[in-house]
């Protein structure tokens, strides 16, 4: 009885405290809003937004609603996060492996890279890339083409635009390729477990991914046209490149800074993963007669991935959260479009900030849940 009371009282007190705090805030908020004549509600999301956005993946202009503006911001955030994740993984894996190289110079260069980019704040890096580096680029009329058809200017990176006919057929072909790859992988795994034979799965997968879409091209079901950027004069001194696709320098700066910064953490995760495999594994595999490539593919990587993936996913999450720094440069991501422009135009601070925070929270929690599921799935089951 005593124990029960002892356990109930603290819980009750904590609950009361939390309820009191939340209640205090809510009551104050309500009072304040009544006094000022502001009302609370999410109906404003259907109102016309009246502002345009610099860069959007979907059709959007000022005549659409605030809810659409929210979607535009969200898609832009996802875009910059996905691009950042791809690049930081590539750079991170290279640097991580370089850190373990027997070559003294490479090892130290990688170490200095990690130490340097890790210790400078991300905001400073973003500012450096955007305000110092990308601002120093030449004006469109003075640019030399990169790779012949792309132009890196102060107004953006202009690349050729691909115009597809029957794009959905291409998507279907890629889907078909992916499904067949999954089947082939399963078959290869079964084959290896039963008969010990290896199929070159990677080659086959790449081949399928290339062949299926190529068929659609060859048979003429899908057509591709390339629109090259063409210098267009807007005034006596102002030019842009029309017809092509323009990537705003804000996006470039953000992806650059995010990738370089997060790559340092990914490199450390990769290094820890590979170093975490005991040397005995490599030696045992070599003594069984596997070639170095086979050792890497069959013995080292599966075990290393188990150690590498959880912290790396954490870093991906950090990158997504850090992409909200786009608000400091003019990249129209969720924070700038919704918690910036929309908030300032409507004045609905509480609703908008709460929606923004909930969005990020949902993203984080879903990735955490995925991560936990993956961890359970690949956990080594002791016999």
């Amino acid at each position: 009885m005593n124990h029960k009371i002892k356990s109930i009282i603290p819980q009750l007190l904590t609950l009361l405290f939390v309820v009191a705090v939340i209640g205090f805030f809510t009551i104050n908020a309500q009072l304040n809003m009544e006094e000022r004549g502001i009302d609370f509600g999410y109906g404003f999301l259907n109102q016309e937004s009246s502002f345009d956005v610099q860069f959007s993946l979907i059709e959007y202009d000022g005549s659409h609603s605030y809810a659409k503006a929210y979607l535009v911001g969200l898609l832009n955030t996802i875009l910059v996060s996905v691009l950042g994740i791809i690049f930081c993984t590539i750079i991170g894996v290279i640097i991580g492996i370089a850190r373990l190289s027997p070559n003294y110079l490479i090892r130290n260069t990688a170490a200095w890279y990690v130490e340097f980019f890790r210790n400078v704040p991300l905001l400073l890096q973003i500012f450096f890339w955007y305000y110092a580096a990308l601002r120093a680029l030449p004006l469109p009329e003075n640019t030399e083409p990169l790779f012949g058809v792309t132009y890196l200017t102060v107004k953006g990176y202009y690349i050729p635009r691909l115009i597809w006919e029957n794009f959905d057929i291409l998507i279907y072909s890629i889907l078909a390729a992916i499904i067949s790859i999954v089947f082939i992988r399963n078959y290869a795994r079964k084959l290896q477990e039963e008969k010990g034979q290896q199929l070159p799965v990677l080659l086959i997968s790449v081949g399928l991914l290339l062949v299926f879409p190529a068929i659609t091209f060859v048979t003429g079901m899908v057509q591709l046209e390339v629109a090259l950027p063409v210098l267009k004069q807007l005034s006596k001194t102002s030019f842009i490149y029309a017809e092509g696709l323009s990537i705003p320098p804000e996006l470039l700066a953000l992806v650059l800074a995010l990738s370089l910064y997060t790559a340092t953490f990914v490199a450390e995760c990769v290094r820890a993963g590979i170093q975490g495999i005991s040397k005995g594994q490599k030696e045992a595999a070599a003594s069984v007669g596997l070639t170095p490539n086979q050792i890497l593919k069959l013995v080292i990587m599966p075990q290393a991935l188990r150690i590498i993936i959880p912290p790396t996913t954490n870093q991906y999450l950090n990158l997504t959260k850090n992409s909200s720094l786009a608000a400091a440069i003019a990249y129209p991501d969720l924070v700038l479009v919704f918690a910036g422009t929309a908030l300032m135009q409507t004045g609905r601070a509480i609703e908008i900030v709460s929606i923004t925070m909930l969005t990020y929270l949902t993203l984080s929690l879903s990735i955490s849940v995925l991560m936990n599921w993956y961890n359970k799935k690949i956990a080594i089951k002791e016999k």
Partner: protein
Amino acid sequence: MININILKPTSSNFQTYLYIGSALIFIGIFDVFLRSFFNINYLTFLPGSLNFLFPLIIGLVGLQMIRLEYSGNRIVDKINQNINNNTFNAGLTLIIIFLTLLVIPPALDWMILEATISGDTKEACVATEGACWTYIKVWFRRFMYGMYPNDFHWRINTAFIVLIAFAFVGYFMRGKLKNYITFYYAILYPIIAFIIINFLISGGSFGLEWVETNAWGGLSLTFIVSFFGLIFCFPLGMILALGRRSELPIIKYISIGYIEFWRGVPLITVLFMSSVMFPMFLPSDAFVDKLIRVIAAIILFEAAYVAEVIRGGLQALPRGQYDAAKSLGMGYWKMQIFVILPQALKLVIPGIANTFLALVKDTPLIFVVGLSEVVGMLQMAKTNPKWLGYAMEGYIFASILFWAICYAMSKYSQYLELKYKTER
């Protein structure tokens, strides 16, 4: 095939190969050296891309020629083992050397050799082509102290020295006082820190003039925010970590909810919330200073991360400690304060140092809500009409400054990690 065989040395004719190889390597490096330092290119008779790749090819051939296992020469052996074990590695090494030679001299030239640091106005800088460090010199006080009045900078300096002195009191605690370390750091130190900062930096009484928080800025503001953030989020993080490991369901779920919520949102939205939403949540008469609101938001945010770090420490303690304490008849709080927490905190000191480092790296964000710490002062300085066009110098200065501080802190935390690892 024949080519490669000619290039491969054998133990008998190694000396000749060594000389030729070294000569080739030297030529390759010398060529790049000439190109970058003096802009001389004596190979213009070669076609475009060959001209560009010439040093690389020569260097590769040279390295190939001295690649022999166990040649007997100590230096050559070391080179072969480290950077020359196959062509790929050799190629990478050469590229790194060449890149260094190509990039460093112009950078050094711009940063040091042709830079100016004398003088007080823009005119001193216009004449040279190098970096304009005069700009940094003139604005240095602003970068350090923000818009704080120049005469009162001694107040900030004293406050920091006193704060750091108090932080090290924990080292000198002997005997019975050691039991109270947790109490000191969790409760006493925050109060002392608050009093010092309130009376010394903010002023308003004891004859010191009041300086409004709008004027605080620069690196000192970064440190104030980081200090306060860490000192106050520490007790809160402890309570949350204990709560998460508690057996009482309500407390456990409230702690989990809090920690997952604050870890899932980006700091910038938290700062927006503090500057735009907090005022609505307080009674209309109560007005809280912007700096305090921002620090409160940072404290709530960081407490979640500190809680996770401390939880790691709590989990690492062997169960025997809990059992022994309970068998001695200690209640929950007694056990935590005198047995568990001191040990757990010692374990997680490196983790807390890392969190502090992350906090220092996150403070530039408060610039987005209008507080001008270093990055904010930088932006303000670069758009001042008298000093336009020196953004690059400002960013390099800030990068070096932050890098130095963070590098020192990360090295210190690595040292701590090693030191505490061996003690157990």
